[in-house]
């Protein structure tokens, strides 16, 4: 039996996504698109002179998984350095493909471990990682990111 995918936290973030807006004065922006399912979003970040992510936001449309993942990501990014954000990207990516077991390996994922069962739904992994790849692309200054 697979783990339940649509947990309360995910449904709640889908219903009321946090930081769901265009961020004026963003220093880092990228567009993410999943041509297979039509998920389409923009990730915005405001990084200060000290390299700290002061604010993160997103807008766009997509399924509950992609929306909840983006919403929770923007919360997790706030106050992180770029290096910490990249580390979190790496951990979340490993979590989503089932390579990181949060109860066995040290990590910084916190509430994001709600996505720990998604690797059991291979067709949905790309929904969960879209905003993360987009965020990573924004930090790397890649304008458009596509997950397929």
């Amino acid at each position, binding site marked *: 039996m697979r783990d339940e995918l649509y947990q309360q936290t995910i*449904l709640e973030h889908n219903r009321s996504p946090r930081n769901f807006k265009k961020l004026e004065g963003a220093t880092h922006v990228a567009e993410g698109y999943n041509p*297979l399912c039509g998920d389409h979003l923009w990730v915005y970040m405001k990084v200060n002179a000290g390299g700290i992510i002061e604010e993160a936001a997103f807008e766009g449309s997509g399924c509950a998984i992609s929306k909840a993942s983006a919403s929770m990501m923007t919360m997790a990014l706030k106050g992180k350095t770029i290096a910490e954000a990249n580390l979190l990207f790496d951990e979340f990516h490993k979590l989503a493909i089932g390579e990181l077991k949060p109860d066995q390996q040290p990590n910084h994922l916190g509430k994001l471990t709600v996505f720990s069962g998604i690797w059991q739904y291979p067709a949905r992994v790309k929904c969960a990682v879209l905003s993360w790849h987009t965020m990573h692309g924004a930090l790397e200054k890649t304008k458009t990111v596509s997950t397929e």
Partner: protein
Amino acid sequence: MTNPYMSTFNIQKLRQDFPNLNIRVHGKPLVYLDNAATTLKPRCVIDAMNAYYVTGVANVHRGVHYLSEQATAAFEYSRQVVRQFLHSAKVHEIIFTKGATESLNLIAQSYGRHFLKKGDEIIISHMEHHSNIVPWQMLCQQAGCVLKVIPINDRGEIIFEEYLKLLSDKTKLVSLVWVSNSLGTVNPVKAVIEAAHKQGAVVVIDAAQAVTHTPINVQELDCDFLVFSGHKVFGPTGVGVLYGKEKWLEAMPPYQGGGDMIKSVTFAGTTYNVLPYKFEAGTPAIAEVIGLRSALEFFQTIGWEGMKQHKEEILDHGTRTLLSIDGVRIIGTAKDKTSIISFVVDGIHPHDLGTLVDQEGVAIRTGHHCTQPVMQRFGIPATARASLAFYNTKEELDILAAAVKKAQAVFKQ
């Protein structure tokens, strides 16, 4: 009360021919409603392909040994069965390809690049599958042709008057889907072909979804080309058909070079083989071609009348059952429609819906169905689609409806 049409249509008996219907998914009996993507395979198709691999493996059109002769005979017999299925005048008008997509690319690259010139116009419709859009866009880039698109109305039907307005002496080719894979619309292909021919344009019919919907007679239709895929008519993947009028196929250059398509090869030059082999370079999908024969023979024993009535009943039942659920809207409400139900549910993205109904053992397709322009036309990113075959039942559609309600309950938590 007995119904004379239903007397020969025994669904329980027919379902027994499909071993895949017996599997369980996530602990529930499989409800397979993704037949527009691919159909399940009856045992006779699997057996025919197995028999080739177990006792009959050989290449075709080459060896003089026993097995090669047997394989060649079986392969060419399949071509006869396809000819009879499409009612083409000549057996060499039947070309085996990888599928409908390759057939369309063959027409675009061979007929299109040979006959179409800069400024010539190609007409397609707004409801085409990407495989009937992209090959023509590629041709337009290569040859400088112009692509025109017949608009569709809110029911998902082509607007025929607009089609007539697009037709002109510049129109050289019209390529139209007979039955839409994402809307279920049945297009008036006969009238489209007649109007095109009056302007001297050739017509390509994409019959990928039509093969299971209606008997096909290419001579009566008078289409210039018609394509379909084996796997959408209960046959294997990897084999499809291109029908073309002899006069066009004769005049067209080969699509690919290689073995089997030549008469003789020297470094001074090569002469090409006769039809149909001119268009069948390389070793074909022999087992698949043999499997396709079995599929078509099986399918034709079912009987169109009983099947048609059953499919209309389950389409009607499925449509009414889904529409009785709050928040469900059906995309594609053409007057002439086949058993495809594309729908959206308020507040639930089709992908979430697809995952949730899958938990109940129900296989539907979610996404844009390779028809992104249709999604753009209706202003939606995607739909959920239940596409029904003759082996589906009203009970299975009730299970789908219950699964949709359950998904709604999850999202209302």
